[in-house]
């Protein structure tokens, strides 16, 4: 007769043991990013958020590049070539610190580098990817415009031919890392449809201005890019990018990182709430002992673990080459919405302390407003899931 062991009690911080199915390399990536975050990022993040910037973006880029985080799921050109799950775990651990730091990495790896990796010439790849992977160069991705957000097909930035060259005119806005970037991947309309260009910073006619007074994603540099007769050779155009599908496919890569990142933000809020509830006493007992608090905590556990399972499952599909972009839409809006619910509950549970930067909860809650908006708003992803299940487009 076999002796039956009682299964161990669930770990409050990984209730469904989601991480138990990780491979050794995936666990190593998670642990490395976690250790890096705990030592190098967590101690400063509240100050950066309060200051509304990343004080030393070059230093941060080199440290992050040293680990191999930038473009880690890409093959070759100095990239580590990890699984999609490993990349997701890195995003999760980074965003457990702050969505702005995850954005710093997502924009470089999944938008700028991925665009060059997917659509660039061999010469563009060897020129830009290795130094971007190492964090020596910073990239950004310019799609959104003042009058063109959810509907990027309406973009007004134009690229026209002038002899052998291209001349770009227009304005991009809300561009993460814009004014600290060494190169901007810029999308522009041409007579043949949308095309992508790698614009080196410093090209005459190209300027980047920091957007101030943000109340969300403050530990991140967001900028406006102005293109005023920017002249580029044909070799600056991404040769394989034809049409709007190209930038949208890059966004799909980045959204995949976001759906993991949201799990990190949610988990951080839940962890903070759990520890606060255990130590804060009112009416003679820890607030964790009240039924209404336990309900909040139980709902948080469910949201965090649902989101975590969704992320891991989509990651496994992606590694098998079987993750459709509608499934990424599902993950993006459901996980971000879950994180927003968790953050709001965690905020309330912290009482007055919850509105300060001494605790991470309001910071996450504010950041998640951006996360819900960029890379396709909640509504846009609902519409894409709606279209996928009904066969009817309700976008316009």
């Amino acid at each position, binding site marked *: 007769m076999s002796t039956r062991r009682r299964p161990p009690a669930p770990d409050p911080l990984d209730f469904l043991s989601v991480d138990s199915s990780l491979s050794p*390399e995936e666990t*190593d*990536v998670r642990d*490395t990013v976690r*250790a890096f975050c705990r030592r190098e990022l967590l101690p400063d993040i509240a100050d950066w958020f309060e200051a509304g910037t990343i004080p030393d973006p070059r230093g941060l880029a080199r440290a992050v590049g040293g680990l*191999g*985080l930038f473009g880690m799921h890409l093959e070759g050109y100095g990239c580590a070539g*990890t699984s999609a799950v490993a990349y997701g775990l890195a995003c999760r651990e980074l965003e457990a610190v702050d969505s702005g730091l995850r954005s710093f990495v997502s924009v470089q790896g999944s938008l700028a580098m991925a665009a060059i990796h997917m659509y660039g010439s061999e010469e563009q790849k060897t020129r830009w990817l290795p130094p971007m992977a190492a964090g020596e160069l910073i990239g950004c991705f310019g799609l959104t415009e003042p009058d063109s957000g959810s509907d990027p097909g309406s973009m007004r930035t134009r690229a026209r031919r002038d002899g052998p060259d291209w001349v770009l005119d227009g304005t991009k806005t809300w561009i993460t890392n814009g004014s600290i970037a060494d190169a901007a991947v810029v999308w522009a309309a041409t007579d043949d449809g949308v095309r992508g260009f790698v614009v080196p910073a410093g090209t005459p006619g190209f300027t980047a201005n920091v957007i101030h007074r943000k109340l969300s994603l403050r530990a991140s540099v967001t900028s406006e890019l102005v293109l005023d007769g920017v002249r580029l050779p044909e070799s600056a155009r991404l040769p394989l990018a034809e049409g709007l599908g190209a930038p949208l496919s890059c966004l799909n890569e980045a959204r995949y990182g976001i759906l993991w990142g949201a799990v990190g933000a949610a988990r951080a809020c839940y962890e903070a709430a759990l520890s606060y509830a255990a130590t804060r006493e009112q009416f003679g007992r820890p607030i964790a002992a009240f039924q209404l608090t336990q309900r909040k905590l139980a709902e948080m556990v469910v949201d965090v673990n649902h989101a975590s399972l969704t992320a891991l499952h989509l990651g496994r599909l992606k590694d098998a080459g079987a993750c459709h972009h509608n499934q990424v839409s599902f993950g993006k809006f459901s996980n971000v919405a879950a994180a927003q619910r968790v953050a709001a509950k965690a905020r309330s549970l912290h009482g007055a302390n919850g509105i300060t930067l001494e605790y991470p909860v309001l910071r996450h809650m504010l950041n998640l407003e951006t996360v819900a908006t960029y890379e396709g708003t909640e509504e846009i992803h609902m519409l894409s899931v709606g279209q996928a299940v009904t066969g009817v487009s309700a976008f316009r």
Partner: protein
Amino acid sequence: MNIVVLVKQVPDTATERKLDPADSTVDRAASDGVINELDEYAIEEALLLKEKHGGEVTILSAGPDQATDSIRKALSMGADKAVHLNDAALHGSDALQTAYALAQALGTVEYDLVILGSESTDARTGVVGAALAEYLGLPQLTLANKVDIDGTSVRIQRQTDEGYDVVEATLPAVVSVVEKINEPRYPSFKLIMAAKKKPVAKLGAADAGIDTARVGLANATTEVVDFAAAPPRAAGTVVKDEGNGGVQIADYLAAKKFL
């Protein structure tokens, strides 16, 4: 310059650590195993020396199956290969027996230098390095906060309460390090991906020529007779500032040897 780094897997100091009540050995299933912190500094120093002088860095660890996690981490920091000594006969070995077993396992590797942490965070005897050097008949340089090599000899700064001593030995030698020596690197993702392709030699006691009558709990030269949980922390001392608060605090710190 071929360097062997001794790496012990210990229970994570951040979690609650337990002894197995049955035989007073560390309950390794009770908490996550991590690389003994000082051994990370030993690995870093070996990697720095390799970057300067070339050669290979080999990890040697004696421990149960789960020690593979720590070996993998050492490889993903940049070590080239590893030797994992793993045999049920070694369970419960004390410091002398562990040193004997490690000395035997070192017989399967070519090396010019052995680097190890000056003590572990679990048993903390700080004896393994010295005993190992004795078994190998090699010079030992302890508590290094700086290591230099010139081909035939090794020179260290030995950390002392007052400053440091400069000590030198001919190679091969055994060097133990303290945490002031360097800042251990993080594993890089490229190396994490490469780690599973690096060679890890799995040795049983017989493969290393270990006499099993000389190792294991039953043959240990020392015995953990009893253990008890640490007493709860006593209330702190309150210093009331009546003009001489600074002096009182300085006296307190001096009495505790912090000053």
